[in-house]
């Protein structure tokens, strides 16, 4: 790392002093250093290194706050561990806040006080972003989204080819009238995808298209802006996160669609459903819902028919942190999965207490931390193994990616599916 300049430091400190509300001040003053959050974090559990204790991550940012924003920290820094923002501090922050936190929020719920550790980690990332210290790998993912419209830099022609291929698959199964409509206007739904789908898992696109076909949905996908992901949530650059979110927002308006439906992606759903209106400083004019909620709506209203006996294998569910703990969809995920499978088993723990897959927080994009990512994933692998399930369902393509790698490394021998895939497998198509 190059030596920090005064300008870089000033930018980060300015951010620390700018408080839109009392949340930052509160959480930076609340930790009592009891250390009881250690066992809630998979980094500490898997690697037993003290620097991975959640409170240590909070402490990095809090010590800067005390140094630059409190009287005690300025007058008696030794008393309250008020630290300077220097090269060593920046390096520690990069390693701990980018490289050792998936921002899963598991520690938050279990903290003895209620410190929002993930929020502070994100704030620390914002300080690093202000100094231009985002890991290059993660920044490259954001840059790809900004310059090409999707985080994997997929060419539009390749994307269209993949969609046409999937449409043919769909038509083989459902008939000529089954379609994957591209770039149409005035539809009820603008549907979005995780670019991992066209790139690695195209069958999940066929699965959701089959569900839309069965529900006789009016929908379209934009070739210009179909990417549901937003790694701006993770690189700490809210401006870039806002630019990415705005594109998707504007695409709904341009295509004159009534609803934005977020494809199966945990962080993408979080970014667009919960964070984006705040990035853009405007409430959205249209409804934004996740694919799972939409599918559940079809099931509840009888728009699609499901025969759960078509899915006989034992299935378990991995709760994406951004959809459950940070997204409120605990019951919705279970409703969808249990409607579509005959044999279901929960992981221990699950729901609000679930462990992250290990790939969240941008970890999948930061190859320099691959070893850590796979190591912490062992906790998830053990959870899956203990269920005895043959299929792991998860409504998040980043989780699918991480779970697929865990499947290989830890020899789990399971199938990994999205909710659309498992529902599509149980779908009973109307003969007419």
């Amino acid at each position: 790392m190059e030596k920090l300049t005064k300008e870089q430091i000033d930018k980060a400190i300015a951010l620390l002093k700018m408080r839109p509300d009392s949340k930052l001040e509160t959480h930076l003053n609340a930790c009592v250093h009891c250390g009881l959050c250690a066992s809630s974090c998979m980094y500490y559990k898997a690697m037993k290194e003290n620097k991975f204790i959640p409170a240590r991550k909070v402490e990095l940012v809090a010590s800067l706050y005390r140094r630059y924003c409190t009287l005690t920290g300025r007058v008696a820094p030794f008393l309250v561990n008020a630290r300077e923002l220097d090269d060593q501090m920046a390096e520690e922050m990069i390693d701990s806040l980018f490289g050792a936190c998936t921002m899963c929020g598991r520690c938050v719920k279990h903290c003895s006080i209620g410190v929002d550790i993930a929020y502070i980690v994100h704030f620390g990332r914002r300080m690093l972003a202000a100094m231009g210290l985002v890991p290059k790998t993660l920044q490259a993912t954001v840059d790809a989204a900004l310059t090409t419209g999707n985080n994997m830099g997929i060419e539009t022609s390749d994307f269209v080819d993949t969609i046409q291929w999937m449409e043919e698959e769909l038509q083989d199964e459902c008939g000529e009238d089954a379609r994957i409509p591209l770039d149409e206007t005035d539809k009820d739904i603008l549907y979005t995808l995780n670019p991992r789908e066209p790139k690695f898992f195209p069958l999940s696109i066929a699965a959701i298209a089959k569900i839309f076909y069965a529900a006789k949905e009016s929908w379209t996908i934009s070739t210009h802006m179909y990417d549901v992901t937003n790694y701006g949530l993770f690189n700490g650059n809210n401006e870039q996160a806002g630019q990415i979110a705005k594109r998707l927002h504007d695409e709904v308006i341009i295509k004159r669609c009534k609803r934005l439906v977020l494809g199966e992606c945990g962080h993408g759903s979080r970014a667009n459903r919960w964070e984006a209106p705040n990035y853009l400083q405007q409430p959205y004019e249209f409804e934004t819902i996740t694919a799972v909620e939409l599918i559940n709506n079809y099931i509840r209203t009888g728009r699609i028919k499901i025969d759960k006996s078509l899915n006989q294998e034992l299935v378990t569910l991995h709760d994406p942190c951004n959809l459950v703990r940070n997204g409120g969809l605990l019951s919705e995920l279970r409703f969808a999965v249990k409607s579509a499978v005959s044999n279901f088993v929960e992981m221990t723990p699950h729901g609000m207490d679930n462990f992250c897959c290990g790939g969240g927080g941008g970890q999948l994009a930061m190859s320099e931390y691959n070893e850590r990512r796979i190591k912490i994933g062992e906790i998830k692998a053990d959870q899956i193994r203990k269920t005895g399930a043959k299929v792991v369902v998860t409504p998040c393509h980043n989780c699918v990616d991480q779970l697929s790698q865990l499947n290989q490394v830890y020899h789990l021998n399971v199938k990994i599916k999205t909710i659309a895939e498992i529902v599509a497998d149980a779908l009973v198509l109307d003969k007419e």
Partner: protein
Amino acid sequence: MIWYQYLSLGALAVFLIAMLWHFIRLIKEGKPKDLSTKSGNLPKAEVYAYTIAMMPNHKESAYLHLPSFTAGIFFHIGIFLSILLFFVFFFISPTLFPQWLQMVLALCIGICGLCGFGLFIKRMIVKKMRELSHLDDFLSNFFTTLFQFFTAIYLIAGSFAPIYYILVTILLLYIPMGKLKHMLYFFAARFHLGYFYGWRNSWPPQKNY
């Protein structure tokens, strides 16, 4: 009233003004303005955040660490009891308490103080705790533990009044400077947690289908 009691009252005034400043600052900064469409029930989530979510069976910090958690609870009970007695002592000298009451209170507070002392020792000898702690953590624990011990001693030996009041004075002046001000920020943190999870309908917990 004697000079050392005036001294402690002066410290109490400084403490109250400083904490009020922290409180007013939080109020002025306000709560987050979330522009996304709310999904949950904020009042219910806030109630949940301050009540059931704090129960030991809902937090790993409690049920995975029962000895530390229990010691912490007793430690805090001892602090609250000692604070209460600090005010009571202005109206009734502990020497006027019935002897059995002096003994019972001193014993209870003494046990709570021992819990605090135990946590102090843990902070010193467990490596992960030592690495997480700084001077303020040790001093905060030290002063509050000593406060309890001297409350207990003063209950049964009135001659310790000067030391007791000087110690209270130091403690009251110290609180706003270090982590002991979590006595205010704890409540603010629970509020923000209730707000965050409540807005997104994660709290109160949903029925598990």
